[in-house]
Structures are given as C-alpha cells and as structure tokens.
C-alpha cells in the first residue's frame, strides 16, 4: 500500500507537469470512469509527420488516475501516433511501478483508454483498448 502511494504518484498528482488543455488541437477525447466518476480529457497536437508535438490532460479523480494521466501524456510527446496505438496497460503499470487490483486498475488505465480512443478516432472508449 505504501507502494501504492509511492512518491512518484503523489508528486505527479499534486504537481502535474502536463495538466491543461491545448487549443488549437488535432485530437480531443474525454471519458469518465463510471464506477467512481473520475474524468479525463486529453488534447493532442500532431505534426505533419504523424508525431505527437504536444499533449495535455485535464480532469479530476483519485491520485492514481491523475498521476497515470500525467505520466502517460509526458511519455507520448515526441512519439509517432502509430507507436501510441500500440501502448497497453503494461506501459502504465511500468511507469507507476506498482501492481493494482481490478478496481484501481480501471483508475490507472482511464487515461490510456481516452488517449487510444482519441488516436483511433473512435466514438466511444472501450475497455478492449487497454487490455
């Protein structure tokens, strides 16, 4: 549990580096975690070469969901969208450096779900995106 609230998580929750909203943006997607009402919006600016130029997240929720979003956004800047499409839950768990039970996993993966739904241009974010 003390692991669950590792310094990196508390730090990214309290002082996120990438909280905000890009305007203009090329991609915008948002979604809720219906179980707890966590909310994440992600905006991306994408270069002509298909590389993520800049990214921000906004929203509210628990430390796990918000820290994950901050870490995720940080990790994709400068990456081709094609690489972003390949990201899965291991990417998030590696960055968080913790194991999570099924309930908190949903908090941790919300930002990835939102990001991938946006990148794929889907109407709705599905759990399949982050398996």
């Amino acid at each position, binding site marked *: 549990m003390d692991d669950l609230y590792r310094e990196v998580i508390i730090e990214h929750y309290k002082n996120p580096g990438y909280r905000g909203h890009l305007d203009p943006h090329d991609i915008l997607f948002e979604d809720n975690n219906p179980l707890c*009402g966590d909310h994440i919006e992600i905006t991306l600016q994408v270069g002509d070469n298909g590389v993520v130029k800049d990214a921000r997240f906004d929203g509210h*929720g*628990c*430390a*796990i969901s918000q820290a994950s979003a901050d870490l995720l956004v940080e990790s994709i800047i400068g990456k081709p969208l094609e690489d972003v499409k390949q990201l899965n839950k291991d990417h998030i768990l590696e960055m968080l450096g913790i194991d999570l039970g099924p309930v908190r996993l949903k908090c941790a993966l919300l930002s990835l779900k939102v990001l991938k739904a946006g990148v794929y241009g889907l109407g709705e974010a599905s759990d399949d995106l982050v398996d």
Partner: protein
Amino acid sequence: MTLNSNDIRKDFPILQRETASGARVVYLDSTATSQKPLAVIEAMNDYYRHSNANIHRGVHTLAEEATAMYEGAREKIAKFINAPSARQVIYTRNTTESINLVAYSWARANLKAGDLVILTEMEHHSNLVPWHMLQAERGIELDFIPVAESGLLDLDAYKTLLSRRPKLISFTHMSNVLGTINPAAEIIRLAHEAGALTLVDAAQSVPHLKVDVQALDADFLAFSAHKMCGPTGIGALYGKTELLEKMPPFLGGGDMIKEVKLRSFRPNTLPHKFEAGTPAIAEAVGFGAAVDYLNSIGMDNIAAHEHEITEYALERLEEVPGVKVFGPTAQHKGGVAAFTLEGVHPHDVAQILDKDGIAVRAGHHCAQPLHEKFGIPATSRASFYLYNTKDEVDMLISGIYKVKEMFG
C-alpha cells in the same frame, strides 16, 4: 447505550477476522451491505443440510419442510413491517427488482404518455433508471422533489409538484448518501390527498428503523435482506392487496400460474403470481432468520444505538480540518456519514484507510445526480450498524489524519 455492541459483535463471525496487514476489521460499510450473524448463516446451512427440496406441490417430507420454511419466513417478514397479510409480501431478488416489478407491472398497465411520476433528487440509481426506461418507452414525464443544501427534501416544492396531478410518487425513505430520513408518512398523506399512489424505497430504512407499512399507509414498499443482516439475492415488495391483485404478472414461468394451456395461462393468486420459477429458498430462510435476529435485539434499540454513534461520528468528523460532511444534522439522519477531505480523492482516502482495516466506501454510491447537485464527483462514506462502536469511529478519525499526513 441501549445495546451492548461488544456483545453483539460476538454474533458476527466476520468481525473476528483480521485483514492481510493484521489489522482488525473495522466495518463501516453496512449501507452497502450488512454483515451476517451466525444465526442467519446457520439457518441457511441447516436448510441445505436437513430440508432442501423444491417448494410447493411436493408431497414428500423434504418438500413440505422446505415449503413451510419458505412461507414461514414470509410470515415473519410481513409481521416485521406490520403488513396486514403475508400474501402482500412478494419475494424479489432485492430492492432494485422490487422497484422494477412496480415499474414493469403496475406502471406499464396504468401509465400513459404525459402521466407524471415524481421522484426526488436524492434517489439511488435503482429508483431513477427504471423510470428513465419507462419514460423512453411510454413518454411518461418525470419531475423531482429538490434537495435543499441542508440535505432535506423541499416539501413546499413537493406541494407545488402535486398540483400537477402526478400518478405516482416514488421516493427513498432514507438516503444512502446523505442519510436523510424523509418524512415518509407526510409525503404519502400529501400524495394520497392529490390522488397519487406511492412507492417507498425502504432499502435503508427497514434495516435501521421500525417501519410500519400500515402506519405509513404506503401503497408499495421495497427492501432487501442483505442490508438487514440477511443474505444477498433476496428482497421483498410489499403492496396493498387491491393494487397487487389488479396488476398483471411480471415474469412468466412456473409457480406463478394457476393453470396453463398450450396457448394460454391463468395467473396464480398472491403472492405467487409474481414469483415465477424456483425462488431463492435458502435465502428466504436466511431472510426470516435475519428478522428473528433483529427482533431479538429490538429495532428501537438499534435505532437509538445508531443515533448515538452517528452523533458522535459527525462531531468527530467536523473537528478534522478539511473534512466536509454532507447531509442533515444527526436529528434527521440515519447512520451514514458521507464526506470529502480537501485535496484528496475519496478513492485514495478509502484505500489508505483500508491499510488499517477500516472499510469505507468511495464513489458516487449509485447516486450520481445527487453528487452532481452538490458539485462533487464522489464522497467517502462511513456507515454504521448495530455492531459498530465509538472506538471504531475513533479509528476512522485517526485514519483520516494519516491520510492528511500522506497527502500533506
């Protein structure tokens, strides 16, 4: 204190266990589901060991015993809520199914496009969604009794709504978030004066207060066993006989029929008309045992004990800087304290409390519109029952201080 929680705790095997970290279980989540006393666990066990058979129409010993136990439990439950007859108590899976039964059977037979159903802003999703579904299907109209900042219903606004000639008022007796105990008898009296029927969501009240359906004059009243020391998978719908008799069946199948031809059927009499298929027999037996257990303690004693704990909890929570408790003062409130802690998400609060064995719930508690009304996505909720003690409130408070330190 009118009852001794330390003695009562001995009746609940689960309260003797420890969590993985070696902490004692401090169970403050009875609003979600209560723990079960040994008497209930053993009644169900005993049923399976000695009397298991399918009920009704069996003539052998086991079938007769099982039927007697299943129907005997119904008698106990009926008496517990002072129903005039056990035939007015229909077994369902839970409160949600009881409300759906009314929405599917009574409402679909009696409501047409434009008819108004009044709910409140503090409803659980189980008393919102069935009506949303009916609105989409039938074009009924919905309106809502507002919740004031105090956590109480605005009864003046209710009286105004009644002038629009609603057909049904469906409302919670006690909020699962705010803890507000609504003035059910008055709400029902006013509804009847306006010519409307009433459905009471009593999921949170029947376990904690003496509820008398005749004194309330409720038309329908729904509750679940699992919140009142009984098992999951069984609940009840009480209804007035003349209403239940006119209602079409809800689910079709075995046991709900009097006679079946290849192309037609005649429904059974009450309460069987609404109980298709093999029911949850062991659970019904457990439900009856839960009623016996609560009666042995006394509902007045339980209510008084919870009131004392709740008063103490509110007092202690309000001492903590950054804590905001939602809902009315203890005077109008059952054993529920939903709160936020400034700067920390309720999930994080719950997770850190869990380290010390303290079980609270975090989220919107199936009352998302109510949370929206108060402008918050979620709360942490501690709730209290007959087995909770002031010590446990103290442990909750120390736990919250730990959370503050971690996020400080």
